[in-house]
């Protein structure tokens, strides 16, 4: 039984609920136990550090300080000085705060001054912040994962999409490579999937550009999806809630924007692990994604139940009539129908 502390992060409870659900199903087969950090708060996502440095770091460090309260004497390999952050942005933020508080004592002092107001304190370097896939590949090991597979994903053509936030800047030197990490490839291969080498594995999904400059985001999403499609992939597999949301939720809009017709579902690696471990799609949050994976999964004999209620019909547009269009021959024309 390997115990770890868990920092879920906000997206795991909302947009990436499927990630959380599927993660919970694979813990037991792999003999993992995650203990959630009590009273955790948002890590500031990708924006806050760009706006207000000290408060942003304090916001992150509060979680680290709370985690230290829950630390137990290390037991075996993992121990509980390890905080697992399944969301890439959370992982990066927690690791970054720890790293910079260690590197710049003045930052640590200021942050701890802020934390003291809540009766908290964090000593940089106390915790080890790691991503879920890091735990699975390096602590649990591919051998054990292979043993837990009861329904291999044979014939499922996938591209592994790591996203940009895991392997760079890699404060703790955890990844096999910064430009082309292979942890996700190895993991999916262990599940029996047909892994296609994906050169864009660490390219940007658009991040929050979907909110600020959708055209930019659409282009970035198009590159990802088009390349996956071209390589004959049936689905993309990701480790990051943000990547999943952008590629999934904006694929339709992107298709409209470019006049393309891509249909590449994107799932979390934990969902595929769950399938391989013989779990039901329903308990893995499969079926809630917007670009449906139903047809793809049918190809490997997985039946996705219909969980979604049909969308309510759109209300009729009850706007006011528009004035007639003006033409140059105002005197000789009729109303444009």
């Amino acid at each position, binding site marked *: 039984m390997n115990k770890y502390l868990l920092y879920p992060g906000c997206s795991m409870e909302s947009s990436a609920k499927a990630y959380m659900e599927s993660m919970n199903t694979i813990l037991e087969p792999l003999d993992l136990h995650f203990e959630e950090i009590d009273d955790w708060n948002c890590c500031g996502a990708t924006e806050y550090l760009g706006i207000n440095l000290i408060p942003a770091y304090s916001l992150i460090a509060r979680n680290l300080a709370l985690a230290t309260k829950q630390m137990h004497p290390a037991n075996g390999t993992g121990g509980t000085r390890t905080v697992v952050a399944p969301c890439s942005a959370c992982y990066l933020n927690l690791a970054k705060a720890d790293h910079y508080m260690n590197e710049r004592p003045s930052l640590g002092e200021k942050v701890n001054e802020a934390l003291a107001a809540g009766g908290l304190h964090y000593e940089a370097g106390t915790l080890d912040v790691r991503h879920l896939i890091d735990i699975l590949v390096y602590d649990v090991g591919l051998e054990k994962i292979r043993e837990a597979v009861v329904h291999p994903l044979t014939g499922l053509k996938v591209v592994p999409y790591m996203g940009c936030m895991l392997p760079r800047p890699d404060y703790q030197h955890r990844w096999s*490579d*910064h*430009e*082309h990490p292979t942890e996700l490839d190895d993991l999916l291969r262990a599940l029996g999937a047909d892994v296609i*080498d994906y*050169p*864009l594995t660490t390219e940007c999904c658009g991040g929050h550009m979907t909110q600020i400059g959708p055209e930019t985001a659409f282009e970035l999403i198009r*590159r990802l999806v*088009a*390349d996956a499609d*071209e390589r004959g992939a049936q689905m993309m597999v990701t480790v990051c809630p943000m990547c999943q949301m952008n590629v999934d939720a904006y694929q339709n809009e992107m298709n409209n924007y470019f006049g393309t017709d891509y249909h590449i579902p994107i799932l979390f690696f934990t969902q595929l692990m769950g399938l391989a471990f013989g779990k039901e799609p329903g308990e893995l949050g499969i079926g809630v994604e917007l670009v449906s994976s139903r047809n793809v999964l049918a190809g490997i004999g997985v039946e996705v139940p219909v969980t979604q209620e049909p969308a309510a019909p759109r209300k009729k547009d009850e706007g006011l009539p528009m004035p007639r269009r003006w033409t140059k021959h105002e005197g000789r024309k009729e109303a444009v129908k």
Partner: protein
Amino acid sequence: MTEKIGVYVCHCGSNIAGVVDVEDVAKWAAEKLGHQGVVIARDYKFMCSSLGQELIEKDIKELGLTRVVVAACSPHLHEKTFRIAAQNAGLNPYLVELASIREQVSWVHTDKAVATAKSKAVVSGAVSRVIENAPLEEIKVPINPNTLVVGGGIAGIQSALEIANAGFHVYLVEREPSIGGHMAQFDKTFPTLDCSACILTPRMVEAGTHPNITLLTWSEVVNVAGYVGNFNVTIKKKARFVNEELCTGCGICQEKCPKKVIDDVYEAGLGYRKAVYTPFAQAVPNYPVMDKENCIYFEKGTCKACEKFCPTNAIDFNQQDQLLNIEVGNIILATGYDLFDARRVSNYGYGRLPNVFTSLEFERLSNAAGPTNGNIVLRDGKTVPKSVGIIHCVGSRDRNFNNYCSVICCMQGLKFAHLVHERTGATVYNFYIDMRTAYKAYDEFYQRVLEEGTLFVRGKVAEVTDAARYSNERGKLIVQTEDTLAGKQRRIPVDMVILSSGLQPRHDAKEVGKMFGISCSTDGWFTEKHPKLDPVATMTEGIYIVGCAQGPKDIPSSVAQGAAASARVLDKILQREVALEPIKATVNKEMCSGCRICNGLCPFNAIAFIADDNVSEINPALCQGCGTCVAACPAGAISGTGFSNEQINAQIDGLLMKNLEPVGA
């Protein structure tokens, strides 16, 4: 007895005088250190000039000086100069001390008052120390006229030939089955486009047949003992499983051998060889070796096809590794380089994308004797590329990998551009950071390649990818790069990418350095005695480094350095004996507890443990006087001649500021 000490403060032009008030230092030494025996203190513009030296000699003769302190540069630079000057005037050279007020004072300080005060302290320390110095005599040892050259690339071959032609014996040891090194793999050599094999093989043959050269290929040095003039070297001659006496080099065994293996060494992984093989047709010596790892007989106990067909019965499966002991006076290391592993730069896709090649792979590709008979084709073995991108500085000048410039890759890239252009008519792009074409006729070659129409893009390539974004990129490799001259990003689709990989120290350079008692720089290259004035000798007497073992360089420089080291070796041999520095460590047997801490620390393996007496003993001929053991001995049983406790304590005592007025803060 009271000593008569002369203190000489050097201006070193403005090097010292610009920061230190040298006149004040001299005046202070004469006034304040008189009680210690300073009878004269002078300052002079250039102490190391002949006039400066004469000044010291004159004072020794006329004033009867018994000790000399020169406050000038580092002892590394001019200690010898002043010691010889003292010797000429009849004073034992070891009664001269150098106080470094340049490297340790004027070069690192800007405040004149502080620098002057520190100079006084350094001078005062040197004066206190020189009083404790004892006259020493140099030790002379005879020199063995044989030389060992390790590594049979072009630098090693050149070194060996120079010495052999001068009439002395050379042992040339090479790890691979044949001499020739990396140069034997190349097709053409820049900037003249001479065929590499055509200019190298005559030298190889000469080295192979020279009466004064003992060629030991498929061999490695396993142990080195002794010291300059008298090295005792153990060489492991790996079993070839071919009897050299009987083999005629006819090649039938290679023809008949059923086992095909990818040749990672000579063919850079692009071609095949057999389990019994000579790496290339012009190999010297020309008898093959059996690769035990891949031979079917060694694996399964059957086959022996080579033995059956050998017309002279030269195949001998019972051959064993042999250990040879040789005595040599000097050693030249020409161990060469490894190519930077381009797989480490994952964004260039080498190892993932089939049509990304390394420079060494391309050398074999373009070589008429290579796997494709010199046809430049893609990895499928038949398609001729229509566009080729050559990326410079792969792994070099890169803070993530090697900081240094690998010297040859720019010219190599230009050479490739020319060869591709000449043989395929393809469009060639060179992606460079800076174009470095120094040396004779190199820039003219650059001009020539420019005129041929090769395109040059200045900027570090970000990535090579096969993820097409636009229709013209389908099925191509896209080089994504910044164009710093146009100030924009470019995506250039090409059929083939060649990575001009940098050079790296040999993977085992550190162990080899340790075996020969020399050190490596932070980058891993062997460290020379002086980067400018002695680039072939090392800090260990009698060990020389040439070619790429010392740092990245091209063929002309390697050859020149090989010859230069030989000149140094011949100079040593012809002197018949060598003077060893008398600065040695000695063990006081009374105090030694036999803890053996010093044994493992000695970088020159000079300390032996005498089990019968339970004490350690230092071989004075091997000891280089580095002082490591002196500092490490917990009992204080080891003392260094010229660095006794009395001397060091006196120097510290003199350095302390008690002699000085405080500097106005």
